[in-house]
């Protein structure tokens, strides 16, 4: 009978001596965060409370729910529902396009992953308004697609100034935000985990369904939020590709602010924020400690 530890009753926890920089212990670096804390308080937290304040008060600064209830105005309601419909559609299309792409890219044996990331974000260096305007050229009645179709005597497409054109604009603009998070999660999956699954008898379809897909879920969820939120709230894409007749909730809010109706605009923004918070809540539920680089 060999005694392993004579006094395990007084178990001592190992001090966490190798986490963080040593300077951390003496708290000498804490002050480095003060400029940032001040900045974030002044430009993120307080401004958000400003929206709540304006949204819940009238011109004279008195409390009211009127601004919020303006969402029930038929025009506003229609704009909100259309925005929801189009953004959900474009999010779904982005997911369908991006997942296979990310999967293929993750299998490429590249010297550096940053090259793939660059290819995907390089278009951002052309102004996004211009890139969206370029889609007018492609989609117009006499645009590139139709010229092409006519050449082969096929029926022409008229999707400019329709909701479809807006969805296309959303997919085009936000596709990178779906591809990159999924790609980043996929390349981090340990190859031995996949090998282990194969070793234990899973075929490639089972390996995908039971291993790769569940492991990539955080990237998918992150991608969904990154596409859904900007799609839901855009007013630029709908202005450029939707003509003047299609109004999304983003257009309504922008217009209210342009006209100086800050209270109404803020009230409608609050309604919009509910949907944003909802999607963030879902994100945080699936993405426990997301301190890493999982967006870029």
């Amino acid at each position, binding site marked *: 009978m060999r005694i392993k530890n004579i006094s395990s009753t007084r178990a001592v926890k190992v001090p966490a001596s190798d986490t963080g*920089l*040593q300077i*951390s212990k003496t708290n*000498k*670096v*804490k*002050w*480095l*965060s003060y*400029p*940032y804390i001040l*900045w*974030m308080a002044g*430009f*993120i937290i307080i*401004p958000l409370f*400003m*929206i709540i304040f304006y949204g819940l008060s009238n011109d004279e600064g008195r409390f009211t729910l009127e601004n919020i209830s303006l969402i029930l105005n038929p025009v506003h309601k229609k704009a909100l529902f259309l925005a929801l419909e189009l953004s959900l559609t474009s999010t779904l299309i982005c997911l369908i*396009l991006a997942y296979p*792409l990310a999967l293929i*890219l993750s*299998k490429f044996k590249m010297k*550096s992953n940053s090259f793939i990331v660059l290819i995907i*974000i*390089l*278009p*951002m*260096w*052309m*102004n*996004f*308004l*211009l*890139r*969206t305007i*370029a*889609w007018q*050229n492609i989609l*117009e009645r*006499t645009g590139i697609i139709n010229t092409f179709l006519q050449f082969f005597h096929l029926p022409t497409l008229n999707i400019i100034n329709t909701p479809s054109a807006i969805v296309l604009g959303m997919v085009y603009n936000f*596709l*990178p935000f779906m591809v990159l998070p999924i790609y980043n999660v996929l390349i981090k999956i340990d190859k031995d985990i996949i090998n282990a699954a194969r070793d234990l008898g899973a075929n490639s379809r089972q390996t995908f369904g039971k291993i790769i897909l569940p492991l990539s879920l955080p990237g998918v969820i992150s991608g969904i939020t*990154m596409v859904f939120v*900007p799609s*839901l*709230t855009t007013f*630029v894409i709908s*202005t*450029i590709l939707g003509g003047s007749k299609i109004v999304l909730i983003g257009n309504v*809010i*922008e217009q209210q*602010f342009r006209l100086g109706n800050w209270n109404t605009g*803020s009230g409608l923004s609050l309604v919009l*924020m509910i949907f*944003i918070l909802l999607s963030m809540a879902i994100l945080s539920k699936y993405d426990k400690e997301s*301190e*890493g*680089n999982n*967006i*870029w």
Partner: protein
Amino acid sequence: MVKRYLERFYVGLIILFLYAPILILITLSFNQSKSRAKWGGFTLHWYRELFQNEAIMNALYTTLIIALLSALIATIIGTTAAIAMNSMKRTPRMIMMGITNIPMLNADIVTGISLMLIFVALRYTLGFSSVLMAHITFNIPYVILSVMPKLKQLNPHTFEAALDLGASPVYAFFKVILPDIFPGVLSGFFLAFTMSLDDFVITHFTKGPEINTLSTKIYTEVRKGIKPEIYALSTLMFITVLILLILINRRNAEKKAPVRKA
């Protein structure tokens, strides 16, 4: 084998989708016709015109200055904040990270409006400085998210080793920590610069009537028609960045060799 070709075809198709509008814009910059609807022959006219156009050059100047300054300031604030956050206990760190994520996950329109409201409430005149502050605000998170992973990879003992060898904490930081996290700092800076350059919505709400960035200038011209000089300018900018990236990639490839020549 078929599967591989199919995969490559698919990647090609998506890249075509992403780059088609850019090809069109580049083509338009050489189009003699002022209308973007028809091709009127090749010309370099718009490139010459561009440099005469004061409004566009002013907007370009404003855009670049704001992108540069906001990226620089955000990099300094963000890097120091990341170092401080990395040494915090779990709970305060998670709270800080949560706040950091707000501008990234929140809608641009909400961020833009909220910033405009605070500037107006403080009776701060909307203009260059308000746009700059707004850009710094949404840029900091990109820097933090770029620097944080590098800090986590850091061997905590390298800093101690430098102190042990006689370095003061400040000297040790610049000699040992900064070089190690520098790739993260640099990519944070470039990311911030890009984001600032490409931003329209937040600038739109915080700029006031006096100034224009390229984005807001383009937006005012959406209805009446974009001036072809703009196509020429964005083509130039795009090509510049493309060449820069190729150069950086090549330099990095050379640096990978393990032995450094003395």
